[in-house]
């Protein structure tokens, strides 16, 4: 039981990492807690489902187009709307993203109805058997792709000019402006990248989870936990946080009831916030 | 000899490996104007923050009227009669000038409860700092000189026994500086307030202070009257470099003032 739970936890934790990285990025760079992140994931999942249903496109292959669509969508939202309130108080920005979340959820409801959707892949039952452990191929693929995305993101942030500009803007808004960085454009790019990652995560979960318009909420809660545990601004932190969360969830159900788990989870979260807000790995980004 | 009002023993504050203030002993006597100078980064503002409780000490102790105040929260220290201005002014945005200053009257040492009394004290202070006509102006609309005087007014509204001034003259022109120097003297001589001043404007601080302490890299390197301090080789060296100090010493010059024909401001 336990070893299988560990394997499952790690495999699924990689998706959490992908979700957490995008969420943590927006929080760290723009000090916005993007509650709509969950709905971006859902859009990705729905798009992946639609491409599969209409053209038989494998969800793994729909990742690039979905990421592109979400990048453009989020870039536009940030550039023309969110940039006006981005420097506002938490009251304003949090309420705003809540509004965005329910707006998008409603749109998904209209376009795809409230019925749960899911993708049945032809190879979904194939898997490896090692010892007593079962490793489904799909989950392994998800794991690999998620790690790949994390790695690409890490390189993007460290090695490309845009990535460096994002970092600069996050660390010193005024300073970045002074050296000629178009900070509001950077914000738009950041939001776009975050949404693209969310969209990719949506594609990744589409074959293994049922999709419904309100699935975004619980996912954002998890993203929040990962961001806190891993520390804002730390890709490695988000990765570790995601895997850890995946592990805790699967291993936890072996030992404790799910409702009690939630209680424990939130209590730990509050304690971390109070006593170690920089997370287990990160440095304090914003107050 | 006047009683000691404020004193520090072994006062230290580190940020990780950085020693912002290290092992500073000092005494401020009641009724005097005590200046603190030193190159940028010397730890002057940090020292003030340690006195008024904004920052906790890493080591050492600070006493006010023989009572240990290090470790108390800022509001407690304010209630005891110590108030302070900030180098980067910290007004209350969204409130008018009058409201900003009244906070000091309402919550400072005297905790005035009567509205009329608070208003009167506020008005009289605004007169002292020459801001009487600007009562209802939102603080965002004040210019730099007015903002500096607002900082001062807020601190005065608390009727402090000990007033800590952190670079009140930065950004002001020559006439405004003279005016503030005059105000500081009046507050000290006519109202009997003990004042600790941090300044970079040399002519100002040398002109008003009774005694001066010099900080460099967080440590005290000199203390004494303005004349004594400005002749100390260590001080000259800290501001202008060792070679300059040695050359001056060799040439046997005995000038007053920390600068040397290069204007009133100390470099750095």
């Amino acid at each position, binding site marked *: 039981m336990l070893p299988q739970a560990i394997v499952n936890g790690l495999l699924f934790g990689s998706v959490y990492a992908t979700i957490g990285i995008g969420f943590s990025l927006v929080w760290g760079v723009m000090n916005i807690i993007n509650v709509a992140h969950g709905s971006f994931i859902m859009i990705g999942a729905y798009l992946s489902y639609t491409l599969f249903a209409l053209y038989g496109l494998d969800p793994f292959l729909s990742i690039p187009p979905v990421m592109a669509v979400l990048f453009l969508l989020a870039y536009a939202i940030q550039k023309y709307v969110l940039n006006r309130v981005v420097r506002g108080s938490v009251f304003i920005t949090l309420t705003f993203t809540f509004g965005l979340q*329910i707006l998008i959820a409603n749109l998904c409801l209209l376009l795809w109805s409230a019925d749960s959707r899911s993708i049945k892949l032809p190879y979904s039952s194939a898997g490896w058997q090692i010892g007593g452990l079962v490793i489904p191929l799909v989950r392994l693929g998800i794991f690999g792709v998620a790690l790949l995305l994390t790695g690409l993101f890490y390189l993007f942030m460290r090695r490309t000019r845009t990535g460096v500009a994002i970092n600069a803007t996050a660390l010193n808004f005024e300073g970045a402006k002074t050296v000629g960085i178009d900070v509001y454009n950077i914000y738009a790019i950041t939001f776009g990248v975050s949404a693209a990652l969310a969209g990719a995560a949506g594609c990744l979960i589409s074959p293994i989870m049922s999709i419904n318009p309100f699935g975004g909420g619980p996912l954002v809660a998890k993203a929040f936990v990962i961001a806190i545990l891993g520390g804002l601004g730390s890709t490695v932190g988000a990765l570790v946080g995601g895997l850890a969360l995946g592990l805790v969830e699967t291993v936890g159900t072996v030992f404790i009831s799910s409702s009690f788990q939630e209680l424990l989870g939130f209590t730990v979260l509050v304690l971390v916030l109070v006593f170690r807000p920089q997370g287990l790995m990160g440095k304090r980004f914003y107050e | 000899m006047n009683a000691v009002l404020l004193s520090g023993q072994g006062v230290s504050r580190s940020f990780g490996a950085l020693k912002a203030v290290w092992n500073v002993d000092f005494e401020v006597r009641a009724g005097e104007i005590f200046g603190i100078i030193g190159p940028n980064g010397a730890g002057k503002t940090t020292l003030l923050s340690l006195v008024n409780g904004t920052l906790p000490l890493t080591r050492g102790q600070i006493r006010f009227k023989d009572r240990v105040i290090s470790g108390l929260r800022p509001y407690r220290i304010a209630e005891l009669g110590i108030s302070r201005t900030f180098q980067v002014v910290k007004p209350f945005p969204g409130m008018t000038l009058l409201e900003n200053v009244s906070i000091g009257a309402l919550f400072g040492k005297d905790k005035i409860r009567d509205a009329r009394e608070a208003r009167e004290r506020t008005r009289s202070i605004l007169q002292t700092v020459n801001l009487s006509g600007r009562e209802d102006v939102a603080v965002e609309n004040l210019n730099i000189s007015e903002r500096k005087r607002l900082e001062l007014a807020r601190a005065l509204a608390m009727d402090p026994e000990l007033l800590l001034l952190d670079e009140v003259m930065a950004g002001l022109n020559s006439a405004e500086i003279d005016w503030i120097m005059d105000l500081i003297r009046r507050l000290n001589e006519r109202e009997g307030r003990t004042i600790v001043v941090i300044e970079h404007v040399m002519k100002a601080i040398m002109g008003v202070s009774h005694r001066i302490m010099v900080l460099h890299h967080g440590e005290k390197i000199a203390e004494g009257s303005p004349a004594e301090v400005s002749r100390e080789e260590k001080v000259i060296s800290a501001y202008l470099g060792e070679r300059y100090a040695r050359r001056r010493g060799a040439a046997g010059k005995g000038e007053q003032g920390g600068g040397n024909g290069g204007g009133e401001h100390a470099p750095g």
Partner: protein
Amino acid sequence: MIPQAGGGRWKAAGALLLAVLALLLAAAPFLLTGFWVRLLTYIFMFSVLSSALNIIAGFTGYAAFGNMVFFGLGAYTTAVLMSKARLGFVPAFLGSALVAGITAVLLGLLLLRLKGHYFALGTLGAAEAVKYLIENLTGLTGGGQGLTVPPLRGRPATVNTFFYFLMLLLLVVILLVVWRLSRNRLGYALKAIRANEEAAGVMGIDTTRYKITAWVLSALFTGVTGSIYAYWFTYIDAPTVFDVMWVVKMFVIILIGGAGTVFGPVIGAFILETISELVWSRFLNLHLGILGLIIILVVLFMPRGIISLVTQGKSLLSLAHRRRPPGRQPQGRPRGEDGQ
């Protein structure tokens, strides 16, 4: 304490308006159908809740996204005391107030040291933790089944009228409290804390004490509203009384009306609930979407609320320190001639 701008002519007109309003409100339950009476009661309830949130969020600047925790605890305290301990409504009501108040002190000591997002989400986490705790104490709270409360006996019209006036009374009380708050020392301390907490401390304000006081005040009103809710609806369950969407609504209400103002939350509640009712009855499918759109539009175009758009009165603290993208006007709204 400090003289307010605005003169006697406003006062006379205002008093007349209030008198007419009071008359209308008093007569309403006898003139309208049960549906409208209940709707108005519901609007009063959200007005109280939003006003209470306004104390800690609008006045003090601490966006307590978990404020429903007090509502839920208030509701459950009353429900448990009335159904299990067979107590009357009045002792249950007081019990709810006590529980809410004590919780606010405990949570305040733990969480009020946090700022901004950390505080907002810390309170949310705490609220969720309490929700799950309550759901797990099945023996006491009925767990997922919820709790039923012994109802008030009487004809429907009488019951409706009772709760209408009870909620209206609570609203009047909280408005009086908040009105005093906008003028007294506590209010000034909170305003200062919100404007610049560090400076407030340096000027002699015991920020911890004042923040906790504000939150306790907010919690008391929120908790007793929960108590009334339990008695009124006669059935409660955890997901409803700890629903975070309620808090989001409350924030939107405060935004629409004007944060840190006295009547803002009431105006906002009336506007939002009216729109909600209209939309709900016609476009069920679009309900959430329209709410979302309203939220977005309000945040973009009216972050200081209606009150600041309409009156000349002193606009209290500026909520959104907005920076526009380069090439546009510099930050903030243009100031009027009187410099407000």
